């Protein structure tokens, strides 16, 4: 099956879901979902579109507008790339976990929790990934002051 046909199929599947917007040209398809549909759309992409490869998951801080979670899912056989994005909304730090669908999401979600403080519902072991366990704050948030005192080494 060619890449164009796969993308057309993905569009057909995802257009029915309320709140999902599709954009992007060529082999990259951008899918924006509401937060509660995040895991549902992820599962759909894996089963129906064949995006078996979980490339990465990260987040963007839009300051007042809140956080945005971005995941990239690839179908390596037919070269379809999907950017799965969801806006958490102002003040919200909870997001459904993709761990049940993709095992590769485990450490990526831990890192997003470490750096942005996003709590993934359904994650089995949400601890800090890179920073020491007694670290205060989440450093990739725009509101984090770089010179936050961290005794005794700063």
């Amino acid at each position, binding site marked *: 099956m060619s890449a164009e046909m796969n993308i057309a199929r993905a569009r057909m599947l995802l257009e029915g879901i309320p709140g999902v917007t599709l954009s992007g040209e060529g082999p990259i398809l951008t899918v924006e979902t509401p937060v509660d549909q995040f895991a549902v759309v992820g599962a759909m992409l894996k089963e129906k579109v064949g995006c078996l490869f979980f490339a990465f998951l990260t987040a963007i801080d839009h300051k007042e507008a809140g956080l945005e979670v971005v995941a990239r899912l690839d179908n390596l056989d037919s070269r379809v790339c999907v950017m799965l994005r969801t806006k958490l909304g102002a003040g919200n730090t909870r997001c459904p976990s993709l761990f049940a669908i993709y095992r590769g999401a485990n450490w990526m979600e831990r890192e997003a929790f470490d750096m942005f403080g996003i709590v993934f519902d359904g994650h089995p072991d949400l601890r800090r990934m890179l920073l020491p366990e007694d670290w205060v704050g989440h450093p990739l948030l725009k509101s984090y002051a770089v010179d936050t005192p961290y005794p005794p*080494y700063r």
Partner: protein
Amino acid sequence: MEIKPPKCTIPPANWEEFKDLQEWKQLHKTRPETGDKFSPLFESVTEGIHSFPGGFVVTTVADNFLNWARKSAVWPVSFGLACCAIEMMATFASRFDVERLGMVPWASPRHSDLMIVSGTVTIKMAPMLERIYEQMPDPKWALSMGSCANSGGPFRHGYHVVKGVDRIIPVDVYVPGCPPPPESLLNGLLLLQEQIAHFHKTGRKAEPTPKVD
């Protein structure tokens, strides 16, 4: 109408006004002297011999001999943190050959005299670095290699970097560069040998070499 070229005046840098430098100076006034480089017993025995008539000959000769022995067998603990460690390895290898200066990279801190801090020290790594330094027997020396270890370097304003390894351990020689070439590190090691040579003669530790980033 004549168009005048814009006059560009750059005020000369007043280094005393730099906040980082002030901070560093303050830190060096108050930095804790961890690790005693003198044994009090040894010092009292030396004082006793020194007070005898003609005893100073013995003490100065003994001092010279001990310093010669110390500076001719400085064993750095093989401890690399980042890309500076590559240059450090090159220095230890046959082309630059620090073994002719009596330096053997040793894999245990308990048998080493020198710690070359080669690379960025992150806040997560800092407790381990401190621990390795404390495991080394006295007298011990530390050499800070590269901009990152000197001051944090290009990562100074990151959230995870210690702004200079001298916030953790007392440093004897600073080697500038990013990374310093092996010649630079070799120069630093020779400066350290000079410091060790008049270690007991002055009765205290020599001043650290001026810090350049």
